[in-house]
């Protein structure tokens, strides 16, 4: 009786898992087969890279990749430096206005830049930055979420370690760099993975502020490429879709454990 219910559950779990992989499996099928096989599932269908070649030649995907890479690195570097400094101040300094300031930081957790598109567009345009990569990055550079996570981590650093470093003559920056930053490694990895995934995938804001090949990230490039008006062949669009998600997907498959743990750590706070 018990064994029966167990195997039924296993069967159900596997069915759901296969169902869950179906959309992805289908996109791979369609991307690697000639378009006449897009909806014909024949195991003898010939494999081809042709769809990728066509997509690559029909739109400047190399440039889009470069833009996304620049965007993701710019955001991450900025976020790490800014959040580290701010978290250090919040965790280790007693100063006038600390609690008020921290509450003001937390406002961003409630009202994210994603919903302030109208006014942020005005700000970016007033700064004369429209259609540039920094325009996409700037609203996200000071991450309340990053500050929050790092502050928690820094608060847990034992005072003895800080004092030991002081005795050895380390400055505030020295203490930060040699004690806090190394001890925050797991938090940095967790935050970094979440941030890279988020900005690799982000779409609406980049769509609004970019208008040219030179600044468009992959997601926006894909949307422009795949728009029904362009009349591009379905298999070629899937190939482009696969290209857009491939780097993150591969990274995830390789570092599965780190990804899951990072998302978990970042989400639980």
């Amino acid at each position, binding site marked *: 009786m018990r064994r029966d219910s167990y195997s039924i*559950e296993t069967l159900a*779990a*596997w069915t*759901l898992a296969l169902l*869950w*992989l179906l*959309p*992805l499996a*289908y*996109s791979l099928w369609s991307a690697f087969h000639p378009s006449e096989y897009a*909806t014909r599932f024949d195991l003898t269908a010939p494999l081809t890279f042709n769809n990728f070649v066509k997509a690559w030649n029909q739109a400047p995907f190399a440039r889009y990749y470069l833009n996304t890479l620049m965007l993701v690195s710019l955001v991450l570097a900025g976020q790490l430096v800014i959040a580290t*400094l*701010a978290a*250090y*101040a919040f965790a*280790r*300094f*007693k*100063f*006038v206005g600390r609690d008020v*300031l921290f509450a003001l*930081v937390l406002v*961003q*957790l*409630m*009202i*994210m830049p*994603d*919903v*302030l*598109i*109208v*006014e*942020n567009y005005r*700000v970016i345009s007033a700064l004369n930055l429209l259609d540039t990569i920094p325009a996409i990055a700037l*609203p996200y550079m*000071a991450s*309340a979420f990053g*500050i929050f996570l790092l502050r928690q981590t820094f608060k847990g650093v034992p005072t003895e370690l800080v004092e030991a470093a002081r005795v050895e003559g380390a*400055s*505030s920056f020295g203490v930060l760099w040699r004690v806090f930053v190394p001890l925050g490694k797991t938090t940095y990895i967790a935050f970094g993975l979440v941030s890279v995934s988020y900005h*690799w*995938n982000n*779409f*609406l804001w980049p*769509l*609004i502020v970019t208008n040219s090949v030179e600044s468009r990230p992959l*997601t926006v490039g894909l949307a422009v490429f*795949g728009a029904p008006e362009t009349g591009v062949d379905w298999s070629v669009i*899937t190939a482009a*879709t696969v290209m*857009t*998600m491939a780097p*993150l997907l591969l990274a995830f498959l390789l570092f*599965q454990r780190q990804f*899951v743990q990072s*998302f*978990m750590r970042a*989400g*639980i706070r």
Partner: protein
Amino acid sequence: MVAAVMSDAAPSAAKRRTWTTSINAWLLLLPAIVLLATFTHYPILATLYHSFFSLGRSGPAEFIGLDNYRYMLDDDVFWQVLRNNFIFAIATVPTSIALALLMAVWVDKKIVGRSFLRLAFFTPTVLPMIAVANIWLFFYTPDYGLLDQFLRFLGFAGHNWLGDPATVMSCLAVMVVWKEAGFFMIFYLAALQTIPPELKEAASVEGASRWYFFRRVTLPLLMPTTLFISINALINSFKLVDQLVIMTKGGPNNASSLLLYYIYEVAFNFWDTTYAATLTVTLITILAAVALTKFVYLDRRIHYQ
């Protein structure tokens, strides 16, 4: 910078030290403050401010008091997208939570192919919404798409899934549940792993059935996690609009439009930025209410533990 944290022995210098500490702290915070002020605090205030002004397409913008808000309350599309947004939340939040819990319970057990199952459930989370929308768009394409081909195989007629106001929301909801359930699964998984195994042993000694144990022990212990996930899922349902740009453009006849997408349309297709600001005030109010509930309710619960 250096002097601030270095222990200065002289007590008379204590006051000056407090000052330098403050200044140093503010310096450390300066980049964060400037950016947050420019891209979070100022935009929130400016949104509110602009919502009281006319657009000024011909001539300067004028203060018009609550006219934009009156217009909003008379705007059928506004009410429709708000209703859509709540329907979307009700359709996606409980379903993805229930599925996430089911997945977590399965993956937490010694089940055949556990890591493969976890991988399968979590993968949609790391994909860009825009890529996901492209793939699912083809599922729903009339006649030629996979869903219709499958239905035709079973002997049913084709259907314009995304073009029919009666089906478009459900189609989008299914896709979003698919994308999000695996993300919520990992929070349940983390919570399940903190439940002491002795509880389970004790229960099985007492002869409690698995379902009974799940209902009376596991589920209550997971309550804080469920609340946490619900709130995040609710906030997401107001933030997620990428798919609309690709799949429906809010159509047919705004049947699938959501509040943030409507804001995007009003601001960047119709260029009515003051009305878009008014709509944004509504969205901010909703998000703030949700977040405050979280702070007041959820954080207090966690405190008691």
